[in-house]
């Protein structure tokens, strides 16, 4: 297998960071514009895919600490989502206790959407971690089961 061309690798290296910024933008503005946690998380997870295309799997796996993705992103996102849901429990599960009606200023610094804003961020973090880990695990599984080291794939690693 021939290595990818230089244009593709440099383009992926540059655009990975723009995809990260764009995904964060979609996650944060999910309560007022098209988007939300899932869509922004899926966009932000393409960051790791672009890095895999640009640098090859060996170098990316030496950089990435998968415990950070697993614990800090995935489980923290899911746990904060559940805790945010439980905090409204005196009224009901998933009660939006921070929301203010239209035209009323919020007493806190939160947007008027209340828990929708925070839940969107939590789900965005969770989806980012989950999809990145799925990609990394499936890509490592290619190498893990081969008896001989894949010499032909090393063309990606400059």
């Amino acid at each position, binding site marked *: 297998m021939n290595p990818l061309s230089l244009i593709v690798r440099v383009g992926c290296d540059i655009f990975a960071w723009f995809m990260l910024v764009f995904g964060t933008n979609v996650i944060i503005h*999910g*309560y*007022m*514009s*098209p*988007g*939300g*946690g899932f869509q922004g998380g899926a966009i932000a997870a393409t960051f790791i895919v672009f890095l895999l295309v640009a640098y090859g799997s060996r170098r990316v796996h030496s950089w990435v600490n998968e415990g950070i993705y*697993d614990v800090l992103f*995935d489980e923290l996102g*899911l746990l904060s*989502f*559940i805790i945010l*849901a439980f905090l409204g429990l005196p009224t009901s*599960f*998933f009660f*939006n206790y921070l*929301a*203010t*009606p*239209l*035209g009323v200023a919020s007493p806190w610094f939160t*947007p*008027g*959407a*209340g*828990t*929708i804003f925070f*839940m*969107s961020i939590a*789900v965005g973090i*969770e*989806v980012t971690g*989950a999809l990145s*880990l*799925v990609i990394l*695990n*499936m890509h*490592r*599984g290619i190498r*893990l*089961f081969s008896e001989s080291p894949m010499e032909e794939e090393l063309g990606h690693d400059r």
Partner: protein
Amino acid sequence: MKKTLFVAAAIIIGGLLIGALDMVHPFGNPGAAPMDNYYLENSLKELSTENIVTSIVFDYRGFDTLGEAAVLFTALCSITVLFREGRKK
């Protein structure tokens, strides 16, 4: 023989499916939808959320999102177990 039987079964099932899909409500006219109208009218007033789909996903129907996040987490766990280290056979 087997192939003709397969084609006949496919045609019969396809005809039944297309006929059933033709009997759904006419496209563009879903009829009265009180629940969706409630969401459309009151989402901006109650929650000051411009995006109605997000307000449904994260507030009105949060249980769906919780189950869906659990499904994603379960799939991630099973993939991690399948490709774990030290399984070189």
